[in-house]
């Protein structure tokens, strides 16, 4: 090889290339050690919980393991008529074991998620199962409660047979897999999640738009005013930012309710009559007003940091080259602020999509968003796998928006400050 003759050596006779690599590797290790705590922190607090959520949302091993014989016997059952005696018999043996081990409570909870009404019939069965006679279990079980003779309950039971299932995701969009394996919608009077998804995205979108419309002029003023005024203005932006979220929400309630200060003022100046006060709270309007005000700083700050770096001479140059103020603004100033707009909009949108305390308090009947539903299943029904599934759907929605943004604007174009 010809290169060998030209190889450069360091003073201690090692090839330069090797020596350099060695030094670099050392640096790399040092750099890695420096970020290792952060990496570990992220894995423990972020990657691991999300992985756990993902697993939880599809894992249904518990029920599968609780009723092994039943599900085995059910394999042959087509799900149209009531199952045969052997299914009932298998169920009797499985359930009796659970009663003896005192773990039937968990089964009741799980099955009640699938179909309401299971809790009580399992409970009644638990009391009577000790006195069952051998043979003819189908009749004996059906005699316990009329719901045991309802094929819907056995279909629901069969739906829980697989160890892994995507049924929680389907439920998140008001669908389920019926006995023929087709994916169908739940009855109309129980469809709630689709409405909530649409509403959540709608609220987040409009709040982002309103925030943008209001924040842009403020940020511009902040960036261009003389220091002493802009500092004052900055405090006006930051002061509410530092105030508790609940305090701000409650203040909006006091201001905007029908007997509130704003309405009192309108009546006083004669804008509206006393018995015809407009409703500005406990509806969508209230949600938009309160959320826009609360999220406004998240839009102002990135915009401001970008605008601060734009030299005023650029606008002057645009105008001196013959552009009207609007043209100069649109062709010169606005494109330069796009990184700030992108950062602000993304920030506000992502925060708004997961909001729930404010809409719950000021939104009235239309104030329930998808995150309220997640919280409800986390805290009240304890159906954590469903809550996880919806949480992941929300997360993937945000990721899709992030991806879209990257395609259209480019993520490296973003600037937070």
């Amino acid at each position: 090889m010809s290169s060998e003759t030209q190889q450069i050596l360091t003073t201690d006779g090692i090839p330069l290339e090797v020596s350099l690599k060695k030094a670099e590797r050392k640096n790399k290790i040092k750099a890695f050690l420096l970020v290792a705590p952060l990496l570990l922190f992220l894995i423990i607090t972020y990657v691991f919980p999300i992985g756990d959520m993902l697993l939880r949302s599809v894992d249904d091993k518990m029920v599968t393991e609780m009723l092994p014989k039943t599900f085995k016997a059910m394999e042959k059952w087509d799900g149209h008529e009531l199952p045969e005696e052997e299914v009932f018999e298998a169920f009797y043996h499985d359930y009796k074991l659970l009663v003896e081990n005192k773990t039937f409570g968990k089964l009741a909870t799980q099955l009640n998620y699938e179909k309401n009404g299971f809790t009580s019939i399992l409970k009644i069965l638990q009391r009577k199962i000790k006195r069952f006679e051998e043979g003819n279990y189908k009749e004996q079980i059906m005699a316990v409660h009329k719901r045991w003779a309802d094929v819907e309950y056995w279909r629901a039971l069969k739906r829980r047979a697989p160890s892994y299932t995507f049924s929680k995701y389907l439920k998140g969009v008001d669908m389920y897999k019926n006995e023929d394996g087709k994916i169908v919608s739940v009855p109309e009077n129980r469809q709630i999640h689709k409405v909530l998804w649409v509403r959540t995205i709608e609220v987040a979108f409009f709040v982002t738009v309103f925030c943008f419309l209001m924040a842009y002029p403020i940020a511009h003023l902040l960036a261009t005013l003389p220091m002493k005024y802009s500092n004052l203005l900055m405090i006006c932006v930051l002061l509410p930012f530092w105030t508790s979220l609940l305090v701000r929400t409650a203040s909006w309630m006091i201001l905007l309710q029908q007997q509130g200060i704003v309405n009192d003022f309108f009546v006083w100046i004669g804008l509206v009559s006393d018995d015809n006060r407009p409703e500005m709270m406990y509806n969508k309007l209230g949600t938009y007003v309160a959320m826009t005000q609360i999220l406004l700083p998240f839009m102002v700050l990135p915009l401001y940091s970008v605008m601060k770096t734009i030299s005023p001479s650029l606008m002057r140059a645009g105008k001196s080259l013959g552009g009207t103020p609007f043209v100069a603004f649109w062709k010169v100033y606005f494109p330069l602020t796009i990184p700030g707009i992108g950062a602000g909009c993304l920030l506000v949108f992502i925060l708004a999509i997961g909001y729930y305390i404010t809409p719950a308090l000021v939104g009235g009947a239309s104030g329930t968003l998808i995150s309220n539903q997640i919280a409800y299943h986390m805290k009240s029904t304890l159906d954590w796998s469903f809550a996880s599934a919806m949480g992941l759907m929300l997360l993937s929605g945000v990721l899709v928006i992030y991806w879209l943004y990257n395609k259209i604007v480019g993520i490296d174009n973003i600037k937070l400050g």
Partner: protein
Amino acid sequence: MKKLSKLLLAVSFVVSLTTSAFAVTAVSWGGAYTESQKLGYGDPTAKKLGIEINWVDYSGGLSEIKAQKEAGKITWDIIDVFAMDTIIGCDEGLFVEFDFDKDFPAAPDGTPASEDFFTEMPSKCAVGNILYSWNYAYNVNNVKGTPKTIKDFFDTKKFPGKRAIYKGALTNLEIALAADGIKPGKGGANIYEALQTEKGVQRAMDKIKKLCTDPQGGCVFWSAGAQPPELLVSGEVVMATGWNGRFFNAEVGEGAPIKQVWDGQGLDYEYFVLVKGGPNEAKAKEALAMMTNTEMLAGSAKYIAYAPWRKSSLKVMEAGEPWYKDGKTNMVPQMPTAPANTKNFFLVDPIFWADNGTELGEKWEAMKAGL
């Protein structure tokens, strides 16, 4: 001097030993409620039995006591729980099963405990402690006339104005049916029977929907117990459902211009359970029997407007009126279980809601989304 200090040391040691050995730990929800329990019957019982009762706060549910049992170190003796938890805990063997009439003293007039208590217990491990009410109240300044019945709550022609109702389906479906003409029956049995059917649920939802979409009416949904009196006082709504203790505080404690209506009220309950294998099971059982006797149960109503479970406690209160701690308010008319208040009522059915809560919750939300 030295001898004396030694003696003191020994005495204090013995005293600390006995008190800690006889200390009973009672667990409850905290706040004004625990305060009423402690002052009403906790301290008097402790004094009479010569033991110490420590009150600990928790936020409900059985997860903690389960964890204690699994870890093999139970530190709680008595827990204040919801009906559903007494059933689950009893099934799972966490709590002691009672022989009711033997374990709990009879009323002063000799009525056995099982008959003196307001209704049957949901499980063998439970002993009733207080009952509270989901009733409604109105602002006297904003309502012309006097609403008297649950029908009036839905009558927007006679009483125009917005209503505040609970954000969930719980108790709303019940009052809707009661207002729609279903006689609750014994403890609300007819209402729950109707709610077992699709038709009954739809009927209740329609009633609520009509109220909320009525231009003369309209709904505000409350989520925190402090909201109903607040909404009434601010004039945001003319009537509101809520918890009677909160209304009482606003009405009597703060002198707000609101009045309660008891027709069609829903009674909800709290129970005590005794932990099996608790640190001081025998003493705790003794204390529990005393705390739930006629006089002691009446004691808590001195401090809060929740009703003692025993009917005989009401008589004690009646004889001792004015019973409230301020020395001038009669408490019997404020009790959810007072005869005048229980002419038309239902008992909130924990088993029904455990069974159907999620499905009805979905339907409820779907109905709300269409408002």
